[in-house]
């Protein structure tokens, strides 16, 4: 087994664009659940809306990159309104039901055969990232072992993560963020103090949704393809795992959570493959090992919930009285 390779590929996951996308989407969930108490089980839907919004506007309507970006954000705002208007006046669990269903609806709609010309059906869409890489300021060459394209998407992805973290942090320390946290604790009490709870919840839903849409774009750009199977329910639950790993009502928690999630996945996979190839483990195939690593992530999450329920960055005090 080549431990150097195992370690370097695990470290490579730390700053991969996919990790950045997971961090952004989990940050959106932190805004939803950690700060506002909105149970969003459809963050994959927001990511799909962002990714498809961008890809379709680029391919079908030949929109330039930034117009496509704006359209993607706009689509996610509209999606948030569609989800929020009927459910945010109701109890928290209704939003959970509606979001999990509508994320699936989005996925099935883009898979429909009748829409193949627009959405590419199950095969998805590809070749929409040209405008993005055309803006690459880095000349060809090797940047820390990556080519200029890989390096560019990482720089953009993580710059976006940093900017979004900063914005969320600024928002959550403000009185606006205080109202959101109050709503998380008891929305009727906040209402009795003269705050328009419905409007605050809608704003939080939109902001978290936009973060999800941006994540969807960062997720698809390096792949050069957007496929419906990437946006299934399991994506949402991976994002929740990241959020819980890092700590719910924190800004850095989702980012670190996403990093831990991908490093653990990469480490377990390469270790298992290494052990299988070197003949130490004979009772597993590499296919089974690929599935076993998700089981291990689940076990890691259980251990974390038992021994550090507030997550890596969470405040123990905030949980002590829950």
């Amino acid at each position, binding site marked *: 087994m080549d431990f150097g390779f195992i370690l370097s590929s695990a470290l490579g996951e730390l700053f991969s664009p996919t990790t950045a996308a997971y961090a952004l989407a989990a940050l959106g969930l932190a805004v939803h659940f950690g700060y506002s108490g909105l149970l969003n089980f459809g963050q994959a839907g927001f990511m799909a809306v962002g990714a498809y919004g961008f890809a379709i506007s680029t391919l079908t309507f030949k929109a330039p990159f930034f117009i496509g970006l704006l359209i993607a954000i706009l689509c996610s705002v509209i999606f948030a309104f569609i989800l929020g208007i009927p459910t945010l006046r109701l109890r928290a669990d209704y939003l959970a039901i509606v979001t999990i269903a509508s994320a699936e609806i989005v996925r099935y709609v883009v898979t429909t055969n009748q829409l193949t010309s627009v959405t590419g059906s199950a095969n998805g869409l590809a070749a929409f990232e040209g405008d993005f890489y055309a803006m690459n300021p880095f000349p060809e060459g090797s940047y820390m072992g990556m080519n200029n394209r890989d390096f560019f998407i990482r720089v953009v992805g993580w710059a976006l993560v940093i900017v979004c973290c900063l914005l969320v942090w600024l928002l959550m320390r403000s*009185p606006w963020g*205080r109202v959101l*946290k109050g709503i998380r604790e008891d929305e009727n009490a906040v*209402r*009795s*103090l003269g705050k328009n709870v419905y409007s605050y919840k809608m704003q939080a839903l939109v902001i978290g949704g936009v973060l999800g849409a941006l994540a969807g774009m960062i997720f698809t750009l390096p792949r050069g393809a957007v496929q419906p199977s990437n946006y299934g329910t399991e994506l949402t639950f991976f994002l929740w795992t990241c959020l819980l790993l890092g700590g719910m009502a924190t800004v850095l928690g989702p980012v670190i959570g996403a990093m831990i999630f991908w490093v653990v996945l990469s480490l377990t996979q390469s270790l298992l493959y290494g052990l299988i190839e070197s003949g130490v483990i004979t009772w597993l195939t590499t296919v089974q090992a690929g599935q076993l690593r998700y089981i291990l992530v689940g076990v890691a999450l259980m251990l974390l919930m038992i021994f550090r329920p507030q997550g890596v960055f969470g405040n123990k005090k905030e949980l002590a009285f829950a």
Partner: protein
Amino acid sequence: MSEMNEQDIDYMTDSRPIAVGENLPGCKKRDPIVVAEGVTRSFGGINAVDVEYLEIPRHKITALIGPNGAGKTTLFNLLTGFDTPNSGKWQFEGNSLAGVSSYKVARMGMVRTFQLTKVMGKLTVMENMRLGAADQPGERLSKALFKGMWGGRERDITAQADVLLQKFKLDAKKDDYAASLSGGQRKLLEMARSLMVRPKLVMLDEPMAGVNPALTQSLLDHIKNLKAEGMTVLFVEHDMNMVRHIADWVVVMAEGKVVAEGPPGEVMKNPAVIDAYLGAHHDVDLGDAEGIKELEAELVADDESVVGTEDAGILSDVVEPNKEDRK
């Protein structure tokens, strides 16, 4: 008295009559702050609230009493927009509140607390207080990012909160999570937080429920002081001693209807109220030995009571005053 300027009146000692005319259920008040007319609310065929006419006097402490299920909390919910009546009109300072959502009612100056105390457990006591303040520009998303736009107001709010926390003896706790407070302290925090809104009418739903007797006196003083500061208070309470001590006006509800109204002394002598709610021997304070002797004497004279007859003691042991005295 009539030529006295409204500004010069000390609300603590103002003894002008509250009602215009006789103290009957639904009577007109000299200066009402809330007027409710024909407000009904039914839950599955049962009329929880059926108030024909009710006025709440301004600058007074009004107690709303009645047996369990009389519709007191439902009336609170209806008045503050937390629930919608099936019919009726109701207004606050002359503005109709029909169809006005609860947060707007609060902004108009009508702030309530809850029977089951609602504090934001995972916010500190200070943050709970700040949350109550009105007119914080930083609560708008467009200004939240820039501390320069809300930092000044935040300092004012914090100063206001400090004063209130000191009054309510919570200043030592201000950096603790509200969830770490005791039940009584939470009641105090909820009341203090509602005052951060600078309300005109404070509606307290059972402010004494679950509060340790040692805190009761200070809570009573706080409520009395609200009147001195020009606020109007409406509260629901089961503790008759509290009602007697601080209320200027008592409204009695039973089965959703207002059955009696008047100053506390008068209402508690009303036979209908005594039957419906207070019990025959309500005016005895069981807290001291004198009261118990008095009660025994009354019960001996009472035909329906077993005390003083040969059956005495069949339900429970005879009360021994000296045992009760040790407290």
